[in-house]
């Protein structure tokens, strides 16, 4: 069983996507993750959806259910003195704290890292903000659209084919909440790296995660070309030839880069003579005659289904892909064979097929996935069971708005 982080406790004081995705990744590796949510309202992701049949319900948001599997939930308002005291007691018992408050906010609450470290010198605090803890833009507000475009990647999207169709339109952000996931993933690695350091020394530390930097750091290749070769990509970035082609039910990528790949593709298209056509035979010739080769590819693709093309071309070794939708993913034979999706049963939302884990471990097996918690589901377990509060205290704290 691969439960690498068994015994590691995590306190997650974070909402929406980045912090919770970080917590989710740690939880599915076996860590015990306790999520601190705002009383009554809970994590903003609970209000975001998607909801079954579109009807909002705080226990049925698809975003929340996905991002919070394997966690426990306690409601707590750390801005009240009693809530702060409880938060301090929880933080004293945890190994990792994930928080996403704006820089300085934890200090205003009397919960900054130096304070938390007093009673827990081994604490690893992962702080996730749009622009980092310091610098001229530290206090700037940002939503996903802002950080994604501030990372440089937005400026390069959506790419040449779209740009040719809509030259007057501007750059776009990565789909769904891509950059928020990027930051959560980078934060999760930082947390485990800090854990490894802590194993050696016993000491904790704070890690400063800037979403802007997490996303930007993924475009090293383009940045290096910009720095060293003066190539600055914008949304007209395109293939030298080949690329995206429309077909009957969507889009595919066809990119016969090498001569052998072009030959294979020409045969699949039923036009083997094109492999020897002087306009297309070599890569320089194909680049030179990009418009002509694209016309050939486009005519061939337009009459067929996207998966039909993919399953014909991919085995030949010619680079290809089809643009997969959520529906295609749910029906992919490859995902099926690897059991990528897993059914998770939630007490209120029912059984839903979640994307599972993108890695398989030789150690085999994995802990069963537990559904996302309902709001405050673990109040009694944590506050009474672990902090030793009397059960009657809970209703008093509830009335006072602390939990």
């Amino acid at each position, binding site marked *: 069983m691969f439960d690498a982080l068994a015994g590691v406790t995590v306190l997650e004081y974070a909402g929406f996507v980045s912090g919770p995705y970080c917590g989710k990744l740690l939880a599915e590796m076996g860590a015990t993750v306790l999520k601190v949510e705002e009383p009554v309202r809970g994590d903003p992701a609970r209000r975001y959806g998607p909801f079954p049949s579109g009807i909002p319900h705080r226990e049925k948001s698809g975003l929340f259910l996905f991002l919070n599997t394997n966690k426990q939930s306690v409601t707590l308002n750390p801005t009240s003195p009693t809530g702060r005291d409880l938060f301090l007691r929880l933080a004293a018992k945890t190994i990792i704290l994930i928080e996403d408050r704006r820089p300085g906010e934890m200090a205003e609450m009397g919960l900054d*890292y130096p304070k938390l470290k007093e009673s827990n010198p081994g604490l690893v605090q992962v702080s996730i903000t749009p622009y980092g803890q310091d610098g001229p833009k530290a206090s700037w507000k940002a939503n996903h659209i802002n950080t994604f475009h501030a990372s440089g990647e937005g400026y390069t999207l959506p790419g040449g084919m779209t740009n040719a169709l809509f030259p007057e339109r501007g750059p776009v952000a990565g789909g769904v909440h891509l950059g928020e996931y990027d930051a959560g993933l980078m934060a999760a690695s930082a947390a485990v790296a800090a854990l490894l350091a802590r194993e050696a020394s016993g000491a904790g530390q704070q890690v400063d995660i800037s979403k802007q930097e997490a996303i930007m750091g993924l475009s090293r290749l383009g940045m290096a070309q910009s720095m060293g070769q003066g190539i600055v990509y914008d949304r007209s970035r395109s293939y030298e030839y080949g690329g995206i082609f429309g077909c009957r039910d969507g889009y595919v990528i066809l990119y016969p880069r090498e001569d052998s790949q072009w030959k294979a593709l020409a045969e699949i298209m039923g036009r083997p003579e094109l492999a020897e056509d002087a306009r297309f035979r070599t890569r320089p010739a194909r680049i030179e005659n990009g418009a002509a080769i694209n016309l050939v590819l486009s005519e061939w693709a337009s009459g067929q289904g996207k998966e039909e093309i993919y399953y014909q071309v991919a085995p030949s070794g010619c680079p290809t892909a089809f643009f997969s939708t959520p529906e295609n*993913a749910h029906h992919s034979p490859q995902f099926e064979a690897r059991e990528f999706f897993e059914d998770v049963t939630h007490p209120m939302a029912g059984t839903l097929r979640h994307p599972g884990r993108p890695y398989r471990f030789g150690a085999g097996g994995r802990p069963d996935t537990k559904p996302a918690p309902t709001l405050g589901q673990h109040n009694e377990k944590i506050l009474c069971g672990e902090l030793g509060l009397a059960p009657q205290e809970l209703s008093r704290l509830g009335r006072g708005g602390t939990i």
Partner: protein
Amino acid sequence: MISDGAVLKAALAGIRVLDFTNLMAGPFPSLLLGFLGAEVIKVESNTRLDAARRPPYSFQTPGQTAGGAADNSPVFNSVNLNKLSVLLNLKEPQAIDLGHRLAAISDVVVENMRPGVMDRLGLGYSQLRESNPTIIMASISGAGATGPESSYPGYAPAFSALGGLGHLTGYSDGPPAEMHDSVDSRIGATALFALLTALFRRRRTGHGEFIDLSSREAITMFSGEALMEYTMNGVVQERRGNEEPGLAPHGCYQCSGDDRWLTIAVVNQEQWQDLCRVTQNPKWLSDPRFADALKRWDNREALDQLIQDWTLTRDAGETAELLQQAGIAADISIDGKELAADPHLHARKTWDFVEHPILGHIQVPSPPWKFTGTPATIRAPGPLLGQHNGYVLGELLGVEREQMDQWVENGVVD
């Protein structure tokens, strides 16, 4: 920088990584392990030169010999910082043997060849484990090591398409987006997390591990919410440009100058009022089409046009400042050149500089995290091809000078 008293060793001090990777998805996780303090040995060969050492990423400068071009690649440099380079021609049995000897003194192996290639070379997990029972190995492939599509070739734009991100990115009425190398990095970042957890597990249990990472699965994770929508309602989410359902204004607006754009996200009524005030447009405030969030969303096309009429004559950067001062989320859509000069990023040392023997003084992005106790660091430029043959084979493996010369001669060290 936030600072903290204790100075600790690097998080991965004492960890050695053997890197059989190429181009981007594989080199990225070993780059990040190197930032964290691991010693990374990149196994290279003239007979299968890393694609990042070839055109268009590498280029000749006037007067340079052909041999030097492999080292004249800013891309290779940036994704192989801190690494050591040793030449091993894996077609030679002796080189495979040296690979095993290196694995025996390493903690981690990373590779991104097609599934099965490492096994055929004699460097698969089960084979390397004989040389090092606690080795951790990550194999990064297109579709994973198993399943009917495991042998299909893959490259970055293919993963963004097959992993669903392409479909969800782009204008709502246009084709899907073309995403490039950043997609490779996202795969590598996923591999890094799996590798670090396996290292933690080994420290606790003494067990090694094999990690089979599917690029397509790694990318699919990023659209979890859209996959949930399908399983819940059978609804296929579509791309939506810069829109966020229910929020307006929320978009990317053209400003004065050459292709300059500004993002604005208004998330509540108070910010809407502030926007009307700061743009000196009181009539927007009294316009019934924009009276509340729902009305603004329904009339977003008209609203976006008004906002863009306002931004079109204004400087993007100054307008971002102005809106931020009013408490509104706004920033420019930044291009590569501006990013390199950005004062905020320089203040945070998000950029670093290395001295490369051929590229010279060159700017590179710093590690993507700021650790207060165990800083992630850039300690050396990307290696020249075979630069560390002597250290790796001589010092680490104790190979004698004459033996090494002979291997260079007969193409083992090549």
